[in-house]
């Protein structure tokens, strides 16, 4: 019996050499299952979309023509170039303001949320609250604050700051938790107080992490500031673009504003890469 089974095993492994003896691998099973379900869901969603009366491929062809026209014949008509430049500056200032406010508040709460610097109860309380804040998209925060404050820069700044705080508390507290446990213990046993530990050990040694997370959030906030201009009347280049697109229906102006946004974003990305290499 046993000789037979070993013989058939041998025959099988001759036919398909590697697969027959491969042990069950949980990681690769999960991987394949995830990829397969994503594929199935994608196909299903393409079937279930409400296409209305659009002929998809004709529309895509038209879209390509539109894009080419938009970017090659870009021109300002309702706004001047100076207007648009000022609007970009306003957008960047919105992003800057929300990042600075967010970073200052998140630094404090990040320390309280780090498990090695705070009590477990307080830490999980803050982390739970932060998970909720982050789960509400930025635009909804802005619109919620717009009810008492009115649509405009106040609601945009407060709403975007809220989401930035949520994001940065998570990032900061995780960088603090990666710190060497021995350092904090050594300082504590030599009699250093909580503030001493924070300002002499924790912040200096995680400074580069904090900087790169903050800069990353600034980049995200720049995008969010454009979006809030368009969706929540926060002013800046997003609002101009919304006006050009939905009010004046001027394709060429949308193209011109897009070029400007793209230019600034590229400058930002290049300087971010530069900064990252410098910090390393």
């Amino acid at each position, binding site marked *: 019996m046993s000789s037979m089974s070993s013989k058939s095993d041998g025959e099988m492994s001759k036919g398909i050499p590697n697969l027959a003896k491969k042990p069950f691998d949980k990681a690769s099973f999960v991987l394949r299952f995830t990829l397969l379900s994503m594929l199935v869901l994608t196909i299903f969603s393409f079937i279930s979309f409400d296409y209305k009366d659009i002929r998809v491929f004709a529309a895509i062809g038209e*879209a390509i023509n539109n894009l080419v026209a938009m970017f090659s014949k870009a021109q300002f008509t309702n706004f001047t170039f100076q207007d648009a430049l000022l609007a970009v500056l306003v957008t960047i200032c919105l992003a800057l303001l929300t990042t600075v406010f967010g970073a200052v508040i998140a630094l404090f709460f990040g320390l309280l949320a780090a498990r090695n610097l705070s009590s477990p109860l307080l830490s999980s309380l803050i982390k739970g609250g932060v998970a909720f804040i982050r789960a509400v998209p930025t635009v909804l925060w802005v619109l*919620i604050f717009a009810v008492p*404050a009115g649509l405009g820069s106040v609601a945009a700044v407060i709403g975007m700051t809220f989401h930035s705080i949520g994001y940065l508390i998570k990032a900061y507290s995780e960088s603090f938790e990666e710190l060497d446990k021995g350092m904090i213990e050594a300082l504590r046993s030599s009699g250093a107080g909580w503030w001493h530990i924070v300002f002499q050990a924790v912040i200096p040694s995680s400074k580069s992490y904090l900087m790169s997370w903050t800069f990353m959030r600034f980049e995200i906030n720049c995008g969010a500031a454009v979006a809030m201009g368009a969706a929540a009347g926060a002013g800046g280049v997003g609002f101009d673009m919304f006006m050009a*697109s939905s009010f004046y229906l001027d394709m060429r102006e949308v193209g011109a504003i897009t070029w400007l946004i793209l230019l600034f974003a590229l400058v930002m990305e290049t300087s971010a890469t530069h900064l990252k290499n410098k910090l390393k």
Partner: protein
Amino acid sequence: MQASYFLKKRLSTALFIIILLAITAGAVILTGFDFMAGFASIPKAAEWGITQFYPTAESLDKLPDILDKLLETIMLSIASTTIAGGAAVILAVLGSKTMQVHVIFSVICRGIASVFRNIDVSAWSLILLFSFGQHVLTGFFALFFVSFGFLTRAFTETIDEVSSHAVEALKAAGAGYFTIVFRSVIPSAIPRKLSWVLFMMETNIRSATLVGILTGTGIGFSFDLYYKSFNYHAASLVVICIVATILAIEFVSNTIRRMIL
């Protein structure tokens, strides 16, 4: 010596803070942000939230409609991310330092990705509104473009980090270009790539709400509709549904990530 070191350190910290304060002050003036109104709005928003922003039995009637739109939004995010992932793999292989066909070609690939990534998803929505109008495809392409740009960059970096040694070994053994790509470059970094795709999916579900508000589709449209008609009870129900979805997706993707990495 020591005293001057500490003095220097303190001075540079002080300088940093002063510059930051100056820039912040400039930003406050330019954006017209009003501190008093800002602080006042927080307790007001909390008060409004407690007294009016909660679902009632009446608003629960809208739940089937909301869930229908929510499903559309989730499907939209999954489909756009998956397709973007597939497309990004191809561009990332061509754009990576390890597998580039030619330097100029690689630079072009990176440039394409950079353009797609650096135009914000809201800007893409407004651009595509011209061609597709208030249609689900507007949102699909807006999310697809941004995801495609972002994932190409992430995949390029992953490929350069993970597979350069294996590729060198395979090249030395005489393997052809496509053999190397399909046997080494793509499979070896798949867990990390999938982790990026999952991250993008989380981001896209958040962005889909915004895109929906701008393009009049999905859950964003539901929220906008109830919000603008002052039906805050129904709008709060939409927010709760979005929060639950995002937390669930985060949980699922973290679980998958823990199992594959």
